[in-house]
Every structure is written in C-alpha cells, then in structure tokens.
C-alpha cells in the first residue's frame, strides 16, 4: 500500500514539475549556437510561390559569428532570409528584449520539447513567435511567426549533430503566407496568349488575402569551425 502511495506521489510530483523558465530554454538554443565560430554549407533550395518558382538551386552559404554571411551561386538565386539558421538573430542578439513565456512541454521522437512564445520584430513587423525547442539539444524543431492573427511563417526542421560540435539543420521546410502583391509577378509573362489567360484568371482572383508558398532547404557538406578568414566575406558582396 505504502509502495503504491509513494509511486503515486512520485508520479504526481513529476506531473506537477514546474515548466522551465523561458530563459533556460532559450539558453539551450544559445548554447548550441555558441559552439559555432564559423561554418560553411551547401544548400539546395526549392521555392514554389505563386509568381515565382525555383525548382532546385544550389547555393554555398558561409557564416562567421557574430553576423558575417556570404552567399555564392552560379547565376541567380533567391534565399529565404529566415530558415538557414532559424531565428538566429532573434535569439542571439545582445539586445534581447523578448518577454518570453513557456507555454507547455511535450515530447517529439523521445526528446523533450518546450514550447515558448515571445513578441519580436519579424519581416519588419510586430509578430508573435512560437518556438518548439528540443531539450537538451537546443534545436528549433518548429517555429511559427504570427502577424495580425495570421501564421505568416511556419518552419519545421530536422537536425543532425555535425562533427560532434553542434546540432545543425539538415532539412528545413517552410510554409509562407506572402503579400497579395506577389500575384503581380504572374503578369510578367511574355506571350500575348498567356497574358490573356492570366488576365482571365485574375478576374476571379481579386481578393487581398495572402497567398501561400513553400520553401525547402536541404543542407549538405557542413564544415564547422574551420577558421574562415574575415577577408573571405569581404570578397565581392554577395547580395
């Protein structure tokens, strides 16, 4: 009987365990990212949004802490501002002014996952950002940015530990809600017949509701902490 009671007590203690403080959860992410002095990675980017498609583009990405970035590609590429190192600037910035709140704890594939929420600037607007953070890996498994009640950005990532140094994303998928102005890009069609077809389809599509898009990033050939010189980032501005 006593054994049962103590088991029940232990279980209820576990159940009632207080949620981790948001700062501790954010520190998990920071601890993982602080291991990065610099890194390089090859990206395969797929973008499909109404008005713009890039079925598969290779881009070489280099980063050096705190904020040096270089992108290289043959020809032309569009690279999402958010997604390569998800929410890096929001979480690593010195002037971290977020008032985060821990919402709940859950479990994903055997790992504890904390869900936190905070207000910050996203796409130059005030946004509510919700992150699913793995414990103890400090990986951002999911992130949602909500502006004006609309989930404008939903990111999901899979991670691997690279060179036993840090967890880095290997596949990231992003669902976007983009401004309706994107529709205007569809007019950039060259043939008269296609233009007429588009004008016809636009007649029934005059709403100002945002349009949806999807991005997939596949990361390969990570090189972590190899000591990239600053001069590498000064050579030919990449964006």
């Amino acid at each position, binding site marked *: 009987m006593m054994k049962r009671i103590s088991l029940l007590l232990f279980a209820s203690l576990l159940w009632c365990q207080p949620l981790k403080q948001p700062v501790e959860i954010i520190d998990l992410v920071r601890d993982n990212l602080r291991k990065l002095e610099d890194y390089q990675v090859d990206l395969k980017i797929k973008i499909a*949004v*109404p*008005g*713009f*498609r*890039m*079925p*598969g*583009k290779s*881009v070489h990405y280099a980063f050096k802490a705190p904020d040096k970035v270089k*992108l*290289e*590609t*043959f*020809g*032309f*590429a*569009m*690279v*999402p*501002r*958010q997604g390569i190192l998800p929410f890096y600037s929001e979480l690593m910035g010195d002037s971290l002014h977020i008032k985060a709140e821990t919402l709940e704890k859950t479990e994903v594939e055997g790992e504890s996952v904390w869900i936190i929420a905070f207000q910050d600037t996203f*796409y*130059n607007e005030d946004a509510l950002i919700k992150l699913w953070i793995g414990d103890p890996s400090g990986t951002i498994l999911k992130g949602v940015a909500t502006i004006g009640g609309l989930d404008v950005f939903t990111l999901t990532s899979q991670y691997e530990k690279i060179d036993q140094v840090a967890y880095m994303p290997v596949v990231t998928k992003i669902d*976007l809600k*983009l*401004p309706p*102005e*994107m529709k*205007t*890009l*569809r007019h*950039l*069609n*060259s*043939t*008269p*017949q*296609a*233009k*007429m*077809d*588009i*004008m*016809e389809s636009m007649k029934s599509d005059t709403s100002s509701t945002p349009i949806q898009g999807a991005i997939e990033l596949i990361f390969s050939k990570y090189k972590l902490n190899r000591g990239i010189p600053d001069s590498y980032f000064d050579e030919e501005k*990449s*964006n």
Partner: protein
Amino acid sequence: MMMLSLIRNEVFKIFSYYRTYLSYLFIVLLVPLIFWGFSIGGSTVERQLTHAMGDQFLMVGKLVNAYTVSYFVMNFLWVHIPFLIALVGGDVLAGEEAAGTYRVYLTRPVSRLKIFNAKAIATLIYTLTVILCLAFMSLGVGAVWMGLGDLIVFQDGILVLPASTAFVRFSLAYGLSFLNMAVVASLAIFFSSMVKNAIGPVIGTMAIIIVFLAVSTLPLDFFVSIRPYFFTTYFDSWAKAFFDPIPWDILWQATWVALLHIGLLLGGSYFIFRRKDILS
C-alpha cells in the same frame, strides 16, 4: 544531283537580292542593341521581384544574362521575323512571274514539281539561316557580352531553371521557331503562287498573321472554340520549351499542326503552280 543543282540555283537567286539581307541586318543591329539596353540598367523584372519578395528573400547573383536576354529576343518571332520571312517567301514565285522569267524557266526539260520543290526548299533554307542567325547573335554574342547563368523564364510568373538545361531547351525552342517560321514561309509561297507581284503575298501573309493572332488571343467563347485551328495559336510553342516540366503533348501537337499547315500550303501552292499558264 539535278535537284541539288536546282536548289543551289534557287538559293543563289534568293541571296542575290538585297532585301534578303534585311533580316540578317535587322538581327545583327537590333539584338546587340537589346543586350546593350539590358547591360546598362536593371530590368522591370528585377524591380518587381525585389518589391514583391525583398522582405522575405535575399537575392544572390545576376538575374539577367545571355540566356535571359535570348529568351526575350525570341519575342521577335511574333511579327518582326515573320515579316522578314514573308518578304522573301512572297517573292519566290511571284517574282519570277513579275520578271517574266517563267517562260524560259518552265520550258526547260525539268518537271514543274522539281522546280517547285527546289524553290520551297531554298525558301526553307533561308528561313533556317534566319533562325540560326538569331540564335547565334542571341546566345553566341550574348554569352561573350553578358556571360551565362541561370535560365530565367516566364511560366505563370518567374521560373528559375538551371543553366545545365539551357542547351536542350534553347535547341528545342529554336527548332519549334523554325517550324513556325516555315509555316509563315509556306503561307507566303502559297500567296506568291497566286499573284504576279511580290507585294501582295507579303501583305497577305502579314494580314493573315495579324488577324489570326488577334483572334487567337481574344477571350471570347466563339474565338476560343476555333482557336485550335489557327496556326498562330501555336506561335508560342517555343516559349513552352522553357516550361517546367516541358509539356511534350502540347509541343507534339504544335509540331503536327505546323507540319500539316506546311504540307497543305505547299501542296496548294504546287497545285496552283502546276496549272499556271505561261503562254498568255
């Protein structure tokens, strides 16, 4: 052997007129001008792309390169190049009649079929050289001037295709363009077989193209239903060579429609040519 001599003779005749060189001159002057225009200033496409997506995306590299400009240049295949093709095709039979050389030419012991075939093949050779000139000036000169890069085209907006696919897609596009221009040449020959001077066939060919193009693009129910029967409906088949994925079924249909038109128009031309009275 006889046929080769006839074709050589017809090609020589075509290239002995100054107006034949107008098409090459047009291409040689205008294409570099377009490259120059692109090289000095950003395009509307870049501005619109930055405006619409600049908040969410970084842009890396150059949007405009030889492939992009060559793709734009191919829009001359709607009206400009057809006019230059009609200028030569319209003269190929009517010119002989106007100059009064039919009597000498057709009384030789060579069948009218062979003479007609030689004229038609020579006109198609000229058409092919115009397309090759356009391809060389766009891709060859463009590659030296602006360099190569991704293939940026339009399919329901902007589509960025890898440079590795450019050769196949441009070959396909120029091949389809040649077929479309061969239809124009055949139409010009058809009109040329009916009249005694070359101005009528040129105007007639262009009138047909412009009217058909206008009707092809009108989104009215009646015109939409008859659209598949116009050869101009398939004038944009070259643009579909840059779609992802390539719509092979549409391209095959465009090819068959073009071949059918060429066959019917040249068949009709030969029918008229064979019955041509050279005595009166």
